[in-house]
């Protein structure tokens, strides 16, 4: 394939409420690379020095999705080196040399696959050329293996010995990628590059940032919708270890020399608030859902055929309403961020999924040029979308600019759970019409979300298989802050839709798997309108999960099926429930995923199993309540997180098709609530319409 040396220019990565990522492939003409001052730095992703040290740079923030291992695996494969030879380093924010340096939307591998392969393959070819020149042979007769170039007469030269000469060569105009049958690293189980640091307790997270002269701070934030009227700082300031108490943007920051001293002082702080409108409670949200369902101002997201006519002619009509509450991201590492704002320079350090927007936002906030702001990326103790909103980074920067000190702002668990950018609460109403033959002829969905934007995914399955469709959304504004939560919208829509289709299949007298396959056959031959998914790939994961799970062939086991397409990947699941002492117990989930090429099998399994456990735990237990703008519960004693003695056995399989890789951090979550709810229904004849189930 054709390639030229690229400059890795950062293109815009703008976030909308559903975070559409915009990126472009720009090619530069020159052979120059901006990163030239490091010895042996061939491109943004790799350096090889004369001693043979091979360093691979992973640009994207690591939140546990395994990108810091997966990216270098791709480069190392095409570079053709032994994985044991490489050292992997986290790159800091570098807008000159990297693009899409962010974590979100399960988009990293899809975006960077070609770029990473080129980064490796072009340097491999330069090594080959350097050796061929030295041996005075044609490059075509040379091979590579484990970081060596091998010549036709038994010559052998290490990449390290060739690095100086190779670096002088022009970047090849075209590169040849490996045939996937020759992969030695891609698709194997590669251990996380940070494993050693983690098991020995190295300080690698945001909360571990320590800088000279640094102070600590905690910030008291107002209830949602409230304005800070006054606060009493005098008693707080007298407490030991307290350096300052300052207020900005309705918040009160307590600055001190240690966490415990701040926690103690905080108990003496009283704040009083006012509000123009009534502060929101659970009842407010229920009333808004009711109103949204009746509203004549819904936005039509999709219209195929004539739903009203089709439903009036249907032999059978099925209707159901589903509802999910606001939930917190609750990563194990609560929000925190370090900032040191000095005249002429700003240092930011900490866990953010989106460092460049942090840089931009802080530049705007402080009125300083972006290039005076340095952002150090730390490892993140989970993100799940919470660290896409840079509120915590902005707070730290603003506080540092006020107190004129380097400061680490720490959120307690209560701060984190009570001051989130929550998964929006949504209510869905579905209506389906079935003809006399049991075919689904009419389909209606209205989503009413609270700060959810468009709470539907109007071009996703089952759309495309049904002649008469009407999909509408209502977005009700709320003072409660929301944001992307792992698999935004689909984390709950997936459950509602897959549970509803299970009801439809039952009413139509069809097997739920066969019904999906029949619908996909129809999509393939004669799709209705625009669709976003590929019916063949959809059908394949369904067929494979039916086989792997022994669908309806296991006596005494109640099974539930679901399948969902998101982030360009397909995941089908069968959950199993067994009755134990009269209680339905989820004993197993079988998942088949098509995410294209699996880069790191170990990491891929981790993502699928983790997403299923995440989806199951939140579907069963998670709910935030609101009373006068204040959230409850506030900690893990009452906000139930799923634990290790509550997880079913999970078998994760992957479709081996060699298609370019797509997302995997999120896609296994959306089908989970549905497969489990459908299995519990199979066992108990009780359907769930609300999350949490229990």
């Amino acid at each position: 394939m054709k390639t030229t040396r690229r400059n890795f220019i950062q293109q815009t990565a703008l976030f909308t409420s559903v975070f559409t990522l915009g990126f472009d492939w720009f090619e530069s003409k020159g052979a120059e690379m901006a990163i030239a001052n490091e010895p042996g730095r061939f491109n943004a992703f790799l350096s090889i020095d004369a001693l043979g040290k091979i360093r691979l740079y992973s640009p994207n923030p690591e939140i546990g999705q395994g990108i810091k291992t997966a990216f270098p695996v791709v480069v190392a494969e095409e570079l053709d080196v032994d994985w044991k030879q490489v050292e992997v380093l986290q790159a800091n924010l570098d807008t000159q040399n990297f693009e899409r340096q962010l974590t979100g939307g399960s988009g990293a591998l899809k975006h960077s696959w070609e770029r990473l392969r080129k980064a490796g393959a072009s340097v491999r070819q330069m090594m080959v050329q350097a050796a061929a020149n030295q041996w005075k042979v044609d490059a075509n007769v040379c091979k590579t293996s484990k970081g060596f170039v091998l010549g036709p007469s038994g010559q052998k030269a290490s990449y390290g010995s060739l690095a100086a000469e190779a670096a002088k060569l022009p970047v090849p105009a075209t590169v040849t990628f490996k045939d996937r049958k020759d992969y030695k690293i891609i698709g194997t189980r590669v251990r996380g590059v940070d494993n050693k640091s983690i098991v020995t307790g190295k300080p690698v997270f945001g909360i571990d940032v320590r800088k000279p002269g640094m102070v600590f701070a905690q910030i008291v934030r107002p209830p949602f919708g409230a304005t800070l009227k006054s606060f009493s700082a005098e008693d707080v300031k007298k407490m030991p270890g307290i350096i300052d108490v300052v207020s900005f943007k309705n918040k009160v920051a307590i600055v001190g020399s240690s966490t415990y001293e701040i926690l103690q002082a905080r108990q003496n702080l009283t704040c009083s608030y006012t509000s123009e409108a009534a502060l929101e409670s659970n009842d407010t949200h229920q009333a808004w859902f009711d109103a949204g369902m009746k509203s004549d101002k819904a936005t039509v997201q999709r219209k195929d055929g004539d739903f009203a006519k089709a439903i009036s002619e249907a032999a059978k009509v099925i209707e159901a309403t589903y509802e999910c509450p606001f939930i917190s991201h609750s990563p194990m590492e609560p929000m925190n961020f370090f900032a040191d704002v000095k005249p002429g320079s700003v240092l930011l350090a900490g866990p953010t999924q989106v460092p460049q927007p942090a840089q931009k936002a802080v530049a705007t906030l402080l009125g300083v040029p972006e290039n005076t702001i340095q952002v150090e990326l730390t490892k993140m103790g989970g993100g799940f979308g919470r660290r896409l909103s840079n509120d915590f980074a902005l707070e730290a920067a603003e506080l540092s600019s006020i107190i004129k000190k380097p400061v680490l702002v720490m959120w307690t668990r209560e701060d984190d759970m009570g001051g989130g950018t929550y998964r929006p609460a949504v209510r869905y109403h579905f209506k389906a019409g079935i003809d006399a033959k049991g075919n689904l002829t009419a389909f209606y969905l209205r989503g009413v979300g609270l700060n959810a934007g468009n709470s539907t995914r109007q071009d996703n399955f089952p759309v495309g298989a049904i002649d008469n469709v009407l999909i509408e959304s209502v977005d009700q504004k709320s003072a409660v802050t929301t944001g992307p939560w792992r698999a935004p919208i689909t984390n709950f829509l997936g459950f509602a839709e897959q549970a509803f289709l299970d009801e439809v299949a039952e009413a139509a007298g069809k097997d739920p798997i066969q019904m999906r396959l029949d619908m996909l056959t129809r999509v393939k031959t004669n799709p209705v309108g625009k669709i976003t998914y590929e019916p063949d790939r959809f059908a394949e994961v369904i067929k494979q999960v039916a086989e792997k799970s022994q669908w309806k062939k296991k006596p005494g086991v109640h099974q539930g099926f679901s399948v969902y397409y998101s982030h360009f990947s397909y995941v089908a699941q069968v959950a199993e429930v067994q009755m134990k002492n009269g209680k339905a117990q989820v004993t197993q989930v079988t998942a088949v995923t098509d995410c294209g090429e699996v880069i790191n099998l170990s990491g891929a399994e981790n993502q699928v199993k983790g997403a299923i456990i995440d989806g199951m735990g939140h579907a069963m237990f998670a709910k935030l309540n609101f009373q006068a703008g204040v959230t409850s519960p506030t900690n893990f004693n009452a906000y139930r997180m799923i634990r290790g003695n509550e997880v079913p056995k999970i078998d994760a399989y992957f479709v081996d098709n060699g298609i370019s890789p797509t997302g995997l951090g999120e896609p296994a979550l959306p089908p989970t609530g549905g497969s489990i709810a459908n299995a519990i229904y199979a066992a108990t004849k009780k359907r769930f319409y609300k999350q949490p189930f229990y």
Partner: protein
Amino acid sequence: MAITLTINRKKVSLDIDSNTPLLWALRDHVGLLGTKFGCGIAQCGACTVWVNGEATRSCVLPISAVANAQITTIEGLNPAGKHPIQEAWDELDVAQCGYCQAGQIMTAAALLKKNPHPSKQEIVDGMAGNICRCGTYHRIQEAVALASKKVKK
């Protein structure tokens, strides 16, 4: 008045409020950052250390209560990462984000010290107090079982 703690076999003298939880003493005053803050109310297990060899939640434990105790943190378990639990954690690639794992490892290592060859159910029960938000529970349980095989019978 200063309190002397024994942390990872070293004596450390701290002149701080004796009510300070061990977690914050370790992190803010001793400079040992491997022990993590998760909830502050002994619910999640991220802050688990050993006190006289017993897995203990350090976020609610005042330093006044452990002045005469032997405290072991993740940094002191085996700095080279050669404890069977640490090796098993790496071999099975347990961690996703890794944040809770120091607490998981200290809980697991204490479990094996008491019961070197636990049954599957004993592992599940023994590890149930520690939350992992990434959902690495299967590999945690498998790694404890693997480590128990590395421990001599």
